[in-house]
């Protein structure tokens, strides 16, 4: 009996004008475009320079800032207040003021002061641009000192160690952070949304009536709905692995096998949840909104984009009942740390519980009789 039903599901999915393309193209596009577009790295920051010193050193500093590639000098102002106006009019994001006698003080006392003001309306951008700037300045100070030491001037100046700044390397690690996260998101969306829309669309078409009047068992029916998405999930994941390897040169430190085993359980859990939503919905619209609501919440409180540890305590507690959280923990530890099944027992047990619970509920809530 199951054979005929699964055959039917696959024929319907393959004949759908959009679904097969969506299943193949969506992961490709998302993985190729999103990590490049949704990037925490900030470039082309508009900088306003207020150079009150106009000395060789101050010009050298400005030149260094420009050549870093992160800043575009859009404005030079005579006074700090004028510079601030540029920020107010949005001509600049950040302002650097080099005080009068910057060079003199640097030579005489071995220290100089600069003032950095950033527009923090976009907090992220403000924070990053001022920290970029200050590290360029620190770097500059270091260079000046090492020049002196080489030249033998001011022999008493102590050698100051320059801390290596990883900040500028942030973007190098960025893909390994973002790509596994996007794979998880794709799996959640495709294997959550499609089942949620499946049963309810049979209700709208009226075909569910013809099924309900047969002696088909509820369990068989739900299984026949689950298996196709299970296979689709594995396909999507495989595409993801491929893009990560070819496009970003990213291979998990652990084994693919571990991820596949987890994905097999995880897809069952989200698809079961989708079917549950579908059972309770009367129209496609309802199902779509409800699953959208849950998927967004799952994603936002899963630790996918913001670390769980920095959430308020109540939100941290909520993540315990979020299957996505366990899957992401697994994904990151396998990709970055190389963990195996044995290290991830806790996550596996949690996912098994979710998969079992959602699917039992999906079978129970499917009603053949009103």
């Amino acid at each position, binding site marked *: *009996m199951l*054979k*005929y*039903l699964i*055959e*039917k599901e696959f*024929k*319907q999915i393959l*004949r*759908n004008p959009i679904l097969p393309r969506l299943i193949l193209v969506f992961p490709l596009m998302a993985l190729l475009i999103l990590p490049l577009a949704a990037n925490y790295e900030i470039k082309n920051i508009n900088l306003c320079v207020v150079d009150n010193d106009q000395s060789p050193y101050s010009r050298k500093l400005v030149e260094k800032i420009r050549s870093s590639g992160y800043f575009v000098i859009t404005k030079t102002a005579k006074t700090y207040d004028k510079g601030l106006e540029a920020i107010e009019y949005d001509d600049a994001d950040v302002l650097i003021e080099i005080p009068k006698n910057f060079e003199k003080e640097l030579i005489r006392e071995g220290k100089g002061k600069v003032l950095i003001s950033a527009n923090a309306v976009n907090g992220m951008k403000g924070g990053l641009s001022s920290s970029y700037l200050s590290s360029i300045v620190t770097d500059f100070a270091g260079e000046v000192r090492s020049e002196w030491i080489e030249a033998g001037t001011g022999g008493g100046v102590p050698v100051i160690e320059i801390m290596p700044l990883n900040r500028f390397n942030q973007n190098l690690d960025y893909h390994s952070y973002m790509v596994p996260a996007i794979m998880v998101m794709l799996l959640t969306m495709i294997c959550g949304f499609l089942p949620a829309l499946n049963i309810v669309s049979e209700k709208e*078409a*009226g*075909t*569910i*009536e*013809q*099924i*309900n*009047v*047969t*002696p*088909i068992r509820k369990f068989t029916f739900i299984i026949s709905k689950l298996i196709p998405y299970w296979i689709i999930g594995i396909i999507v994941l495989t595409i993801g692995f491929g893009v990560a390897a070819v496009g970003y040169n990213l291979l998990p430190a652990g084994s693919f096998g571990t991820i596949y085993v987890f994905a097999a359980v995880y897809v069952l859990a989200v698809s079961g949840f989708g079917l549950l939503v579908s059972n309770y919905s009367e129209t496609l619209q309802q199902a779509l909104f409800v699953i959208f609501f849950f998927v967004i919440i799952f994603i936002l409180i899963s630790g996918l984009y913001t670390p769980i540890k920095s959430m308020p305590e109540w939100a941290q507690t909520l993540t315990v009942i979020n299957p996505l959280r366990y899957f992401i923990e697994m994904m990151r530890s396998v990709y970055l740390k190389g963990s195996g099944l044995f290290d991830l027992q806790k996550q596996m047990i949690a996912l098994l519980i979710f998969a079992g619970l959602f699917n039992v509920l999906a079978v129970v809530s499917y009603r*053949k*009789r*009103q």
Partner: protein
Amino acid sequence: MKKVIEAENLVKKFGDFTAVDNITFQVNEGEIFGFLGANGAGKTTAMRMLCGLSKPTSGEGRVAGYDIGKEAEKVKANIGYMSQKFSLYNDLKVWENIRLFGGIYGMGSDEIKEKTDELLKRLNFENEKNTMVKSLPLGWKQKLAFSVSIFHNPKIVFLDEPTGGVDPATRRQFWELIYEATDRGITVFVTTHYMDEAEYCDRVSIMVDGRIDALESPMKLRETYDAKNMDEVFYQLARTAKRNGG
């Protein structure tokens, strides 16, 4: 005579509204039973209870020997059902729909194949075997839906307004299919709006406001109500209805 459908004081309420109000009747094995009534009289609701698609609020019923309250799934294994709204899969081909439902009722692959060819031949439908169901004309869709509903050889088939919206010639062909089914020993329970079709039935019941107000053979009904045809019988009874059709 053996009774294949027995309803006793069946009631279905939706909130305050009593859709089916205490109906009692029997259907004999092998007969064509017409279930008439105006729109909204409760025909479909009553039929859905008998098919195990809807739980009775109270009352009892047995279909094909099984209790519709406690053994709904056993009832389902022994009946066929064709709903008012076309409910085969539009995105499957003709043979795929037949195969799917044959499979669900537990038929084997070879048996399905053999019977499918036989059926399509009988319907003169061989050229449409690979046609997607959505591109069939309505009359053909309904013939196919009926054929699928009796493909697994059920004891009883329930037809809910099977000929709605099709031309008289196609209706005639459809009724020929119904007669063929009774020849195979299948009991037919059919709802309809067409009074000429009521004349084809062995016995008819007429539902008014959720109750069964008359139950007889068409001939006896015409005598009782002193009417020329079933149309007049129907008007006389339906006039007493208080519910609005729709």
